[in-house]
């Protein structure tokens, strides 16, 4: 079943001074539930823009985006933040976490925003922390963790609320390749165990190798789309 469908999506940035930048041009893409999809492409090819469109962080200039059978292109900011909170997990390249909260609080925070009861929150956080092997980081603040540890906590935060879709923008770009691979294996396991859909942008070939499907962008257009 399709979790996300993009039809003829374009994004044009027009700044006052500069000429127009076509970041995405006529993208058609359908992603099914449970996919583990890598988006690659050279810098400036539109990977981040594409993920932002899918996650409702930005709206397209043209075209439709259907998330879980709902057209999100027409939604207002408050409705979008509701969808982001309940249906999507985000992992960014770095500095994902709220610096004044500990790892545990960063995870629990999302659940508090979702108004989930305390017992359940704690059970879920513990569960995820155990699963990702970050039990011993729970009391640490982001500034006391390494980049790899922070990304692990970021993944934990993204999955703790059990979203259907997880969007990761170059999650391993700031990590050494070994840590990156471990992290990716972890994401893949989560994908298989819980049928969580992962879409991640990367230009790391070792990451692309682990994907089940690979879409490559060039100049804002889909150059290639292949299942492995």
């Amino acid at each position, binding site marked *: 079943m399709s979790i996300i469908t993009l039809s003829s999506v374009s994004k044009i940035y027009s700044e006052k001074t500069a000429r127009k930048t076509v970041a995405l041009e006529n993208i058609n893409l359908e992603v099914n539930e449970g996919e583990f999809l890598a988006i690659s492409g050279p810098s400036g090819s539109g990977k*981040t823009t594409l993920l932002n469109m899918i996650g409702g962080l930005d709206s397209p200039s043209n075209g439709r985006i259907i998330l879980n059978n709902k057209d999100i292109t027409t939604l207002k900011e408050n409705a979008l933040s509701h969808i982001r909170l309940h249906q999507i997990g985000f992992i960014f390249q770095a500095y994902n976490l709220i610096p*004044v909260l500990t790892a545990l609080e960063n995870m629990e925070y999302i659940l508090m925003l979702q108004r989930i009861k305390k017992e359940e929150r704690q059970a879920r956080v513990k569960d995820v922390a155990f699963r990702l092997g970050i039990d011993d980081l729970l009391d640490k603040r982001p500034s006391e963790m390494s980049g790899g540890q922070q990304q692990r906590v970021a993944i934990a935060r993204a999955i703790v609320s059990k979203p259907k879709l997880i969007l990761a923008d170059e999650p391993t770009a700031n990590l050494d390749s070994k840590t990156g691979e471990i992290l990716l294996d972890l994401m893949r396991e989560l994908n298989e165990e819980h049928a969580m859909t992962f879409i991640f942008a990367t230009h790391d070939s070792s990451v692309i190798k682990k994907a089940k499907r690979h879409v490559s962008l060039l100049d804002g257009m889909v150059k290639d789309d292949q299942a492995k």
Partner: protein
Amino acid sequence: MNSLMVILAFRNLARNRVRTTMVIAMIASSLTLLMYFQGFMDGIIEQMTKDTVRSETSDITIYGKKYRKEKDLNNRLTHKKYVLKKLSYLDSIEEHFERLEHDAMIASPYYSQGIKVIGLESEKEKDDFILSTRIKEGDYSFPNENAIWIGHALAEKLGTGIQRKLVLTVQDSKGEIIGEAFRVTAIIQTNNPKIDRASAFISLTKAQALFNVPDITQLSIKIHDQKRLREVRDTIQDEIGNHYEVFTWRQLFPSLQFMETATQSYIKISYVIMFIIMMIGFVGVIMMSIMERVREFGIMMAIGHKFKQVSLIVFWESLMMSFLGFLIGTTLGFGLLYIVNQTGVNLNIFGQGFEQFGIASIIYPPMKIAYCFTPLLAVIITSILSIIWPLRILYKLKPIQSIQFN
């Protein structure tokens, strides 16, 4: 949900301790200063009011009909028994005091001057008027008929002192010129220039004998409840009819009222200016702290915060800082006022001569709970107003889109 925002706000403040401390210190010190200033000004007004009013009368004063226009013995207050009887029906009245005042010439071997002679009931006035507490030399008593008290400035001019003799020359109600010798038993200093420079006090009975009248010129009334001042005055006027004129102390001393109002507006203006300055600094600080965190706010919004919730965090940060500043500032302010309320503020360090204007050289600022109401209101308003502009800017920056581009 809100408690979450509060915790976040608190930790954010703790993150930049130096800046937070500076802001709080700025608010606190401004408030302390303003409170001190307000207490000091109130102290001056209260002292002037007390010194001026309570050396001359009590809460309400009754005169004969035209006496205020022309202070002549012919316009004195007659039928005192009738008036007192009427007053005895009113339970809002606590006490009444009689005085007889008229012009006289006072003379020492070196100097003579026209003054007011005031006959008074010294025992009765003791607690309500201030003269008993303003004896510079001698005693608050008339040990015999010819005892006289005089103001300290007058004593200086006359070159006289305790136990020395003076001569009063008066014209009595029949038009006779009479001279009589008195002995100084007290020298008085009230800060009321009228009293200190041009008044002498003798006992009421002696004054009545001297001026040859059985009556008085002024009947002062002390009432139970200051809040009903106006109302009690009206009742008295109604009771005793219009052969008499009844005044509240506020009516008798309009300049004091004016000074009080003027000072209050002055204090209000100071508050407004201070808060505008504070607000400018505050806006700057909030702006800076927001700008540093645009990406952080972006992440928060990406993971599901509404902009409203982000704003709420900023609001709590601002409110906590100003409220802490308020608590510290008012505590220090009350502490300072408590101290100077005991020790007094000595104006002599600014030079001499305040007494000419009726200002005592040592001011005792009062400590009023109300002093923290304006600051409280002000900090709440400040913390709301000063986040509006920074938040607008944050909103325009679309923090959510700044996540990917550092």
